[in-house]
């Protein structure tokens, strides 16, 4: 970089200083001093280009822009267009300089976006603080993270309470409360207090590092558009060179143009034939899109996902933990011979000491409860306990039957049943709460062109139906095994012409994530199998990121296509103009570096997410 800053601007400046008087003398027809000044200007400003071109020739792999520029500027000299020869070289260098600046700026913008990993950690040992490289911290080390500092390594809090700003990882701005026992991921910022914690991963395995790794290597999986432009330039450059040779040779043979003029036009062709603007325009757009998405907690595994995601027609969801919070709550009470409040009171009291999700849900729903005695927890079935002077059983149908409780015929299916002193007193149905944003996210997806939505779930029929109805899902299937989900998903994919999206939390959905046209794993970078199988990972479990993802992908794709069309059409247009002697070498240089700069600047728009309508 230093070399570039010192070397290139210096060469350009020196070239200009020699070029201006040289050009003036040339126009005053003071030929010999003009020639000397202009030759020096070309040699000095173009030295880097000439040397690199020589290196290319030595490798026998020289069809690059440097070689072409050399031929063009030396050729201009040979046909007596001295001023033009130097000017083209200078213009090219200035253009290249701006091109490098533009690429550098985009790189930095993305690097800042992703600069979420602190380099050092404050290690506590024997009451002493010492700051060491995060890289050297071993698993199990006790570290201190102060308010306002980034968590350097994935850790578990040992003491202290604070809030955790996870926005760098998840793009979510609502901080999360942390207390002893909470897992905190590297890259998050601790706010409102300091915590002492014990590291659970090395730097390499920590969340922030893994996210960076994912994003940086995403560019290696090429998109269709990228492969197209690479292939295109492979034919484009040799084709234009052949055209240039024909341009130089054919018109003079038929006495259509003097040799000098035809050679001049041919040299301009050579400048236009440079492939750089083409090949830089597309990956830059995808990289912008990948970087911009990453800052919102949407991680792409490759540029190839963009086009599939922008044309999804079917959206298939896993239920628990994806559409719902994965947290149970009481949905309805079916008392039998007692009132609702009493049913809840007895059940909650019996479950007093239990931490099972069902018990927690019942306890949350009950207005009051008392401490129960002689608690028997029957694993997988329920609880029997003494509440006041009655013996209360809360659990599955099986549990009650094993206690010889007679159940009426019309009990609701898939519920928790309650009996007092051997007599059935009612049932409690529970369900998983739908995420607050689910409804809106699905509506947005429909507005974005999703035609059919599906739930494929392992949960019981009643629970799946209620979620499906609440969200207006088109089709649902319940009580599925992971294999069953996979088969149904395959059926959906095969029977539709559009792309199919599968969204899961990734725990046992790996086959489906991999099979779908686009598999999105929600909720973290924790599970390796999910990352492995998915095409994209949404780090938070916020469903609004799904429409964001579709919008971002479409925008990125549009920008990439704009760049392709722009770069190719400008090049072709300039070829046409130049062959009719309009514009000349200047225009040709613009078609090379100017187009590249514009394409890069355009590509950077991909980093910004289009704003949500009505929000």
């Amino acid at each position: 970089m230093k070399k570039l800053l010192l070397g290139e601007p210096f060469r350009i400046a020196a070239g200009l200083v020699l070029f201006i008087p040289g050009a003036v003398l040339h126009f005053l027809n003071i030929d010999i001093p003009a020639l000397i000044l202009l030759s020096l200007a070309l040699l000095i400003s173009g030295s880097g280009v000439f040397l690199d071109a020589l290196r290319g020739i030595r490798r026998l792999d020289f069809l690059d822009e440097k070689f072409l520029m050399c031929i063009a500027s030396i050729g201009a000299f040979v046909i007596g267009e001295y001023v033009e020869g130097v000017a083209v070289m200078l213009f090219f260098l200035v253009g290249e300089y701006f091109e490098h600046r533009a690429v550098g700026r985009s790189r930095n913008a993305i690097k800042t976006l992703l600069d979420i990993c602190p380099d050092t950690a404050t290690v506590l040992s024997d009451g002493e603080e010492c700051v060491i490289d995060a890289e050297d911290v071993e698993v199990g080390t006790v570290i201190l993270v102060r308010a306002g500092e980034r968590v350097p390594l994935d850790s578990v809090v040992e003491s202290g309470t604070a809030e955790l700003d996870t926005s760098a990882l998840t793009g979510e701005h609502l901080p999360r409360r942390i207390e002893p026992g909470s897992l905190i991921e590297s890259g998050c910022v601790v706010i409102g207090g300091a915590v002492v914690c014990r590291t659970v991963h090395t730097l390499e395995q920590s969340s922030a590092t893994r996210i960076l790794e994912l994003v940086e290597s995403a560019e290696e999986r090429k998109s269709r558009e990228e492969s197209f432009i690479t292939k295109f330039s492979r034919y484009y450059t040799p084709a234009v060179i052949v055209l240039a040779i024909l341009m130089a040779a054919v018109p003079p043979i038929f006495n259509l143009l003097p040799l000098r003029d035809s050679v001049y036009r041919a040299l301009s062709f050579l400048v236009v034939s440079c492939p750089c603007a083409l090949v830089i325009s597309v990956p830059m757009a995808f990289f912008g899109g990948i970087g911009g998405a990453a800052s919102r907690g949407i991680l792409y595994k490759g540029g190839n996902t963009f086009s599939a995601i922008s044309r999804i027609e079917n959206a298939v969801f896993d239920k628990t933990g994806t559409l719902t919070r994965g947290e149970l709550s009481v949905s309805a009470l079916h008392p039998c011979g007692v009132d609702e409040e009493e049913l809840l009171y007895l059940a909650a009291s019996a479950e007093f000491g239990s931490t099972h999700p069902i018990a927690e849900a019942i306890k949350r729903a009950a207005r009051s409860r008392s401490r129960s005695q002689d608690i028997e927890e029957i694993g997988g079935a329920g609880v029997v306990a003494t509440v006041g002077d009655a013996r209360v059983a809360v659990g599955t149908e099986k549990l009650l039957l094993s206690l010889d409780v007679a159940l009426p015929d019309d009990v609701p299916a898939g519920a928790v049943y309650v009996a007092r002193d051997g007599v059935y007193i009612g049932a409690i149905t529970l369900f998983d709460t739908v995420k607050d944003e689910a409804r809106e996210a699905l509506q947005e997806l429909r507005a974005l062109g999703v035609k059919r939505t599906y739930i494929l779930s392992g949960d019981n029929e009643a629970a799946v139906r209620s979620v499906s109805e609440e969200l207006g899902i088109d089709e649902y299937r319940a009580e599925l095994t992971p294999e069953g989900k996979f088969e149904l998903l395959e059926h959906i994919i095969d029977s539709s012409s559009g792309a199919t999206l599968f969204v899961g939390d990734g725990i046992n959905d790996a086959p489906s994530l991999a099979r779908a046209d686009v598999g999105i794993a929600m909720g973290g970078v924790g599970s390796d199998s999910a990352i492995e199988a998915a095409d994209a990972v949404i780090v938070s479990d916020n469903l609004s990121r799904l429409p964001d993802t579709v919008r971002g992908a479409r925008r990125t794709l549009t920008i990439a296509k704009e760049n392709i069309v722009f770069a190719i059409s400008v090049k072709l247009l300039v070829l046409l103009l130049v062959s009719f002697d309009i514009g000349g070498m200047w225009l040709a240089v613009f078609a090379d570096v100017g187009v590249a700069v514009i394409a890069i600047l355009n590509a950077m728009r991909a980093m910004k997410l289009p704003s949500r309508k009505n929000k």
Partner: protein
Amino acid sequence: MKFKFNVTGIDCPNCAGKLARQIEGKEGIDSCQINFISERLTVESGLAAEEVAAIVEKECRAFSKDIEVTKR
């Protein structure tokens, strides 16, 4: 073994591809990938780390004097 380098000073993705093929063509190097945008060079090779570094540095210098590689 995979060896990773940071590489700066490459002009465009086209040049990056050429340089990668050049390095790949050297004996003992199984594959070479250059990511132009994130400026990363990844080499797969059975050779020792110093040998790989020497080959990569030599090829980069032979390609353009603006290119600099450092081990990461």
